């Protein structure tokens, strides 16, 4: 992870990175010097002002760390999933229930993102699997850089399943690639069925949607079909699973999906 990491941004990391500071800014190699002709007309003869072409994605830095994480996951045959949702959708309960059913068969590790507290990581550790908590403080999403450092602490096993539970937020995490194989968006039936069109970016970015807390449907006016229609309207490719982490209804399909996706990570493509 730290192959691209300068870590000179005031982050507090306990390990020493001194050796990297000589070669961590190699992204300057991009071509930025073309096609200035049209721009020279802006400059008056004596003005020191000039135009510089940048042509760089604002999130280029995050994307570089994400690519590094993705390479790490690939080399270790891991399946990394970025779990996103609003606060209170039942992500952590879904995780603890999933872990309870899979931990005897698979190696599992968890990165927990929250603004404050280590409560979720503690809930995960109580299931017996390793978890690292990232507190984002005032930040509203996890970024690939911090996930990379969490991996150093976590040291997940080869062919393991890594859940990255993002900060509860349906807005910002959609833009930040963490290097995951898939974003999985969790929506509980206690929320509105129109969430997919109210927060389209997240549902657009996700490959799988889990409609959670289906045990509560008899008590609610939630229209599942309409919700699924909205989700597919935003993202025609999205796959949807309905389940209740509490009662276990529908969990089998989710577990089967996880195992199948993990198996796919073992394939060596040419």
């Amino acid at each position, binding site marked *: 992870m730290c192959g691209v990491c300068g870590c000179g*941004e005031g982050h507090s990391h306990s390990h020493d990175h001194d050796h990297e500071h000589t070669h961590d*800014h190699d*992204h*300057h190699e991009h071509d*930025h010097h073309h096609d200035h002709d049209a*721009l020279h007309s*802006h400059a008056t003869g004596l*003005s*020191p*002002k*000039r*135009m*510089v*072409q*940048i*042509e*760089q*994605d*604002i*999130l*280029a*830095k*995050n994307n570089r760390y994400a690519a590094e994480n993705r390479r790490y996951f690939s080399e270790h045959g891991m399946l990394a999933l970025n779990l996103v949702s609003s606060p209170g959708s039942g992500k952590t309960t879904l995780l603890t229930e999933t872990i309870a059913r899979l931990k005897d068969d698979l190696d599992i590790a968890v990165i927990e993102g929250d603004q404050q507290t280590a409560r979720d990581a503690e809930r995960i550790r109580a299931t017996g699997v390793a978890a690292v908590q990232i507190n984002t403080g*005032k*930040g*509203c*999403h996890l*970024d690939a850089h911090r996930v990379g450092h969490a991996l150093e602490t976590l040291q997940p096993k080869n062919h393991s399943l890594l859940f990255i539970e993002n900060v509860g*937020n349906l*807005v*910002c995490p*959609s*833009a930040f690639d963490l290097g995951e194989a898939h974003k999985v968006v969790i929506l509980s039936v206690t929320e509105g069925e129109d969430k*997919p*069109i109210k927060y*389209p*970016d997240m*549902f*657009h970015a996700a490959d799988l949607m889990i409609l959670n807390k289906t045990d509560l449907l008899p008590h609610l006016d939630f229209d599942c079909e309409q919700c699924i229609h*909205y989700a*597919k*309207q*935003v*993202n*025609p490719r999205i796959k949807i699973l309905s389940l209740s982490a509490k009662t276990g209804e529908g969990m089998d399909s989710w577990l089967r999906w996880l195992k199948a996706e993990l198996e796919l990570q073992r394939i060596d493509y040419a």
Partner: protein
Amino acid sequence: MTNPPGADLHWPVGCMAGIAMHEMSLCESILQVLEQQAEAQQYSKVKTVWLEIGALSNVEIDALRFSFDVVVQGSIADNAQLEIIEVPGQAWCMPCSRNVVVQQLYDLCPYCGSHQLQVNSGDQMRIKELEVE
């Protein structure tokens, strides 16, 4: 917690804070690029920044402008002008086999009404160019 001055009433406080923080972190990323490029491109002051922001990029332009001014204070881009080039959303409609303009990710094809659309432009957030000295 009180509403920030000028906050629209239909934005819940938490949501407003979330959006502003999102733009704030984008501006921090922009400033990092400006500072990294300063050495390679040999400038010491950024006067104007041109950004290309897609209509589907989930960026609130007003929040971005506000955050930019705050983030660049005291940096090489202090008081820099922010010029935003807005790029319309575009998607490939599979049934029509052509590009169509979309305003939102959940828009239907304006010609055939299908939602089998693949966004191919308008989700970018790019730094285009700078005026420096």
